């Protein structure tokens, strides 16, 4: 189940993260590595939930758009996920939120992405390494 979740997480990433020009692209290798740690250390319940949410997302897409999510053009797939997110029903809007969580965690955890957003993580890391507060 974990490997299926990881595989689908990678497949879903482009729909959740469509970088603006100049923004770093999602890195499938990093996504996989982070996802591996995320699902290994996480609760079995979340893995199970993730698995079912992927199936529900696919099912809803087939039902509402008549096609698999992956068969839809990129923009249409994004719009479909966005429509779920904007739903009045909390259970429906929770689907993309939960599916997107590990994707965003992995992508925006990367140094290059954080630096692009103005969080000078490398400089701070160097500064902190030089400084040690003792009791």
């Amino acid at each position, binding site marked *: 189940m974990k490997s299926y979740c990881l595989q689908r997480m990678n497949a879903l990433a482009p729909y959740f993260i469509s970088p603006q020009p100049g923004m770093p692209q999602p890195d499938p290798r990093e996504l996989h590595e982070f996802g591996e740690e995320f699902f290994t250390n*996480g609760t079995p319940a979340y893995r199970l939930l993730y698995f079912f949410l992927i199936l529900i997302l696919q099912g809803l897409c087939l039902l509402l758009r008549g096609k698999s999510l992956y068969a839809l053009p990129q923009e249409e797939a994004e719009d479909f996920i966005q429509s779920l997110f904007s739903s009045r*029903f909390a259970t429906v*809007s929770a689907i993309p939120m939960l599916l997107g969580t590990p994707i965003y965690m992995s992508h925006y955890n990367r140094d290059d992405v954080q630096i692009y957003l103005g969080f000078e993580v490398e400089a701070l890391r160097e500064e902190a390494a030089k400084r040690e507060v003792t009791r």
Partner: protein
Amino acid sequence: MIIKPREVPGNISRDADVVIIGSGAGGGPIAKELAEEGYSVVVLEEGGCFTREDFDFRAGAAFTRFYRDGGQTVTLGLPVVLLPQGKTVGGTTTVNSGTCLRIPRHVLKRWHLERGLRDISEDELNLLYSAVEEYLFVKRADPEVAGKNALIFLEAAEGLGYSGGFLPRNAKDCEGYGVCAYGCPSGAKQSVNVSYIPDAVKAGADVYTNCRAERILVRSGRAVGVRGRFIDPVTRRKSHRIEVEAAVVVLAGGAVQSPSLLMHNRLCLSSGQVGKNLSIHPCACVTAILDEKLGNPKGIPQSTYVDEFAPEGIMLEGVTLPPFVYAISIPWVGRRHSRAMLDYPYCGSFGSMICEHDSVGKVVAGPSARQPLTLYQIGREDLDRVKRSILLLAEIWFAAGARSVQTPIDGFKELSSPKDLQRLARISIKRASIYGLTAYHPMGTCSMGSDPDWSVVQPSGETWEVENLFICDASVLPTSLGVNPQLTTMALALRTAGFIDERLCQGSFDQQYPGRLRRLRNRLRAERVSLTRRLAERE
């Protein structure tokens, strides 16, 4: 010494005066106090031991490494509340914001009146608080490193006439790196992993890491030790066994794990109170887009507060979001999401914390002792209070000049002007309409009290049913505090250490006040007298 699983050659069987389960805000201070008194102390910690080199500003990775279940622990109920708990040496203190607030007077009064805890007097608590604050270098957050986000919010709140200020924190020479919740990279935050535990180890305590306590050994109604297993930190498989025979067992696993262990060991269940009475301080976060860059997430994440509404049970406290948390909080996907992420440098954020009145929660045994289920249903009054806190946060952000404000309420995810606030104020929200609630302070599941029918532990911290089994963590706090509970947990830990010392010295509780506590009081009194004298001389 701190012993990691790879340093353990085989099964361990040993004895000690005291064995402590957990090394957080409750276990750490007890370990230090008793080790310094000369007792042999063994601490079993389920999490790993991490140092400042491991705290490397990677927030996402920190969740998977330093938090229980990768930070994915939630309460079941409406709405679902994310309840992250630290799982590392130092417990949640390693990954919290370091806020150190004393118990509000009205809450202590409630403990006295409703729970019969008159033994815990205000004077005594104040002495214990002073000892902890002195040891942890507690002082108000420095405005220089408080962070622009917090300063702007506080200024706007004060402009509206709301009272607030800078929070007291256990940090020494803090530079405001903004990543307290992912481990302090400079060691400035005096969490238990850099304060109480190292001092306990210096005094001779042994801390076994990645070691999960599974069974509390009880003979003839007395706790006599703990049995546990080491867990390989990489494969997560169980490895060697450990059995520690001890005169006193201290359970300090936190308000979710401690009752779970009791339930799985079928201990202390006759009152029916184990696992019940859970309160968590539900928190909401409101973000805003401002016109100026705020230098996120630099600055102390929780440096300021607004306590104007504390009498209503609403406390507003600072929060800064690392990029990935901001990414999760944005209610869009794809291109729109990426465009919104460009606003990250302009994003302000502040949180609210609710002191519960009518919410109901409990911890029940899950499929394994490691994975209890946390059930929590927010009450109608508390839900209204959450909504009110969101309105207040939004109002203050608009007063601070926000272009737009994002709230965690369905249908009001983005507010573009103060007029939207009136619209939001008029509606009655449902439990399912609030998303993204979090909570960081589980409490009350092994509550302290003077009546064995309605509480799990005595005012001394010892359980009513099992002799020599003490509980010392936030689970003993009998009601929702309304403020961050780490300081109170530590103060009560010092108090409990006094009772344990007395038990180990004399084997009975004949005196009204134990010797340890009396010595501590005398020391604090002497220090106060000497400080007053020094100040008088200086003047």
